[in-house]
């Protein structure tokens, strides 16, 4: 059972950061995952009063405060227009509305959880994270780092045009996913992200020779199958209580094939201009 000795509603990021350097102190996000643990927290540091619960649209990017909830992401029209709805698709099966009104993007990404739909989705967008001490770095770089005592302040999503697809498989609705997959086709090429392997999401670049064919929508079903198998072969999978490694490997081929087919739909051009 989660134990907290002291609770501080931080008045500044500086105060929160300084408090967070002390052993036993923790930043609290939605606390949905944290409360499942038996952590003994000396001081819980709450960022709820720092105005970080807003999504701000700028000329070239969206700036998402770390306390923005998954429900806010789900309902944000402009963000979902940019991503062709994959943000909504990635969060809509995470438990229920009441849960998503609490879970924060900051907590979801800072945890770099293996089961994360959110990490998979945002890795397929042109995403950066703003760390209090570490500055702005690509999400992919952040995802590879070990956890430290920095603070994830904001998530920045560049308005990079592209075609996006999100797919996930669950044993039962609202459960953790067995496997997640997100695909991206933009001016820089095509990429596939696979998460809940059950390790954290990883990104695989799709060879440039496929980019043009996907853009033209000219891949045959056989080619899509072959490409999906090639990509799946690069993605290590493991076993847990939800599924075995072999099943996940098979599922990766299926989800990637379906995702690739969706990616090249309408000539892969949706929102590309």
């Amino acid at each position, binding site marked *: 059972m*989660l*134990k*907290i*000795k*002291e*609770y501080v*509603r931080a008045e500044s990021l500086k105060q929160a950061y300084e408090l967070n350097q002390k052993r036993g102190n923790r930043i*609290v996000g*939605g*606390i*949905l995952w944290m*409360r*499942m643990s038996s952590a003994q*927290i000396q001081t*819980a540091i*709450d960022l*709820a009063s720092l105005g970080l619960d807003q999504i701000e649209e700028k000329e070239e990017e969206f700036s998402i405060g770390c306390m923005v909830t998954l*429900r806010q992401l789900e309902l944000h029209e402009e963000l979902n227009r940019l991503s062709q709805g994959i943000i909504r698709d990635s969060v*809509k*099966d995470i*438990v*229920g*509305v*009441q*849960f998503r*009104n*609490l879970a924060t993007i900051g907590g979801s990404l800072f945890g770099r959880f293996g089961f994360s739909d959110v990490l998979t989705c945002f890795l397929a967008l042109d995403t950066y994270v703003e760390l209090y001490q570490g500055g702005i770095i690509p999400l992919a770089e952040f995802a590879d780092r070990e956890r430290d005592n920095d603070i994830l302040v904001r998530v920045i999503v560049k308005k990079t045009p592209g075609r996006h697809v999100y797919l996930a498989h669950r044993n039962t*609705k*609202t459960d953790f996913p067995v496997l997640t997959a997100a695909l991206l086709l933009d001016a820089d090429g095509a990429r596939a992200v696979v998460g809940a392997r059950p390790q954290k999401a990883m990104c695989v670049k799709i060879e440039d020779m496929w980019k043009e064919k996907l853009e033209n929508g000219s891949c045959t079903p056989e080619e899509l199958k072959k490409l999906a198998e090639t990509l799946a072969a690069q993605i290590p999978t493991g076993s847990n209580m939800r599924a075995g490694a072999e099943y996940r490997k098979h599922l990766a081929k299926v989800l990637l094939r379906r995702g690739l087919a969706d990616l090249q739909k309408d000539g892969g051009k949706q929102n590309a201009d």
Partner: protein
Amino acid sequence: MQISIQLNGRKITEDVRPDLLLIDWVREHGCYSVKRGCETSNCGLCTVFLDEKPVLSCSVLAARADGHRVDTLEGLQEEASEFGAFIADQGAEQCGFCNPGMIMNAIALFRENVDPTDDEIREYLAGNLCRCSGYEGQLRGIRAFIEYKKKGGAVCRQ
């Protein structure tokens, strides 16, 4: 630490432990409609409104609700009884343990979307588990309630 919460329209100020959960706090104040179910943030039995948004009170620190408004089924009697009658008419529940959470979240749905489709209803209420039924009765009750509203029933609060 001291917190001050507007619970069902009544401001309450008192000292609490930093790790006290909102579910325990509201129950200590007599709101027994708020049930402890799964303890894993999954079942929706403990649904309350925090600043009018449905949340799982088992997963909110009472300290975080400081300075905010919390509403439970006890504070929504009029809306709840109006809608609850439609659930009862369908015999939609057996043990009734899930019912307060289900009604709270259904009210949240109606406030957001006065004419939801079946898929929207299912999606919105996916976080409310019922282990007695197959949800069909609840769905029939919700449909009947929506039709009643369309035909001029009392207007749902927006």
